[in-house]
């Protein structure tokens, strides 16, 4: 028997085993099986398996299983909703349109911080430096103190204006985020003057002595 013929007959074996073979195929199939030991065995195997497993029960899934599945799915979705609430809120706060409205204030705050950092005073001569500090060092130190004082005033005005703007924009979610940043900025500027003021006096006294 040619293998190609066996291959063609393969689907018919399945149908024959299930008793659904078409009448027009029956003669060809029976002729082939009578002559082909392999296909006869295939048919016997398929019949044995189908007949044996036909007796197998197919009980419906118990309703209690379905109840458990649906209840647990519901519980999990509720738990997930509770867990996702803060994340969702943060996502809304940081969503692009709101962040965009806040961008100028944040940009200004960042610029102020940068300016503060770059304008920090250089080490100045003091009484402790004694006779080793030259007149040139003292002049440079005084100039640095003056520059820092002017910068402080400018920064204080800018930061105060920004803080005022953020506090008046109560409805903006972004303003809520900017407010503490700006408040911290103003406080840090306010903390700056004390050492500078004393330093000028000390330098002048040192010059007199």
């Amino acid at each position: 028997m040619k293998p190609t013929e066996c291959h063609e007959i393969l689907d018919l074996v399945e149908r024959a085993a299930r008793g659904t073979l078409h009448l027009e195929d029956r003669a060809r199939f029976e002729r082939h099986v009578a002559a082909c030991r392999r296909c006869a065995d295939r048919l016997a195997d398929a019949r044995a398996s189908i007949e044996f497993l036909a007796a197998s029960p197919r009980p419906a899934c118990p309703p209690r299983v379905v109840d458990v599945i649906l209840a647990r799915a519901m519980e999990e979705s509720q738990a997930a909703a509770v867990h996702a609430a803060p994340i969702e809120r943060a996502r809304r706060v940081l969503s692009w349109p709101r962040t965009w409205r806040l961008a100028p204030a944040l940009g200004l705050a960042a610029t102020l911080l940068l300016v503060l950092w770059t304008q920090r005073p250089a080490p100045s001569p003091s009484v402790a430096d004694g006779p080793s500090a030259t007149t040139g060092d003292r002049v440079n130190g005084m100039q640095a103190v003056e520059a820092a004082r002017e910068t402080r005033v400018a920064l204080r005005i800018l930061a105060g204006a920004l803080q005022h703007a953020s506090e008046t924009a109560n409805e903006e979610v972004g303003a809520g985020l900017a407010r503490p940043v700006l408040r911290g900025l103003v406080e840090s500027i306010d903390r700056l003057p004390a050492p500078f003021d004393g330093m000028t006096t000390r330098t002048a006294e040192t010059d007199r002595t």
Partner: protein
Amino acid sequence: MDHESFTELVGEHKDVVYALALHLCGSREDAEDVVQDAFLAYWRHGDGVPREAARPWLLRVCRNACIDRLRRTRARRTELVGLIGEERLGSHELALSDGGREAGDVESSVAFAEIVRVLGALDEPGRSVVILRDVLDLTYEAIASTMDMSLPRVKVTLHRARRRLRARLEIASQVQP
């Protein structure tokens, strides 16, 4: 996926998934656990699965879970046989299985126990393919999709598993008077 669609999906596929689990695990309790896990896995991760592919997906998850359980059970049994011996363990299991039966339960009938025993003697993936084809009446295409196999491979696997099953049945009939 919303809860309503999920309820609909469970109603549509629960019986076929349960039948596969029952025939693979051979125990009602295990089958119920596996079915629950399979559907909840779909609830958690099934968003990317198209609706028409839900059945093969569920059957695949169910089959993998059953195979894992069987592997663990066999490993435990081997340990117990080493500890108390095959004979004592066998009589203990028989007492347990008799006690677990409920009147009218097809899952715990003697005929079903025999079917599970014969199917259990087959290797994977042949056993799964035989169950999908000869118990659940799935088409070759559906089996190929569930088992992630090509159609010719499904046919060859089915044929080999049936041959083995028939040989088992013949041996059993010779042993019985």
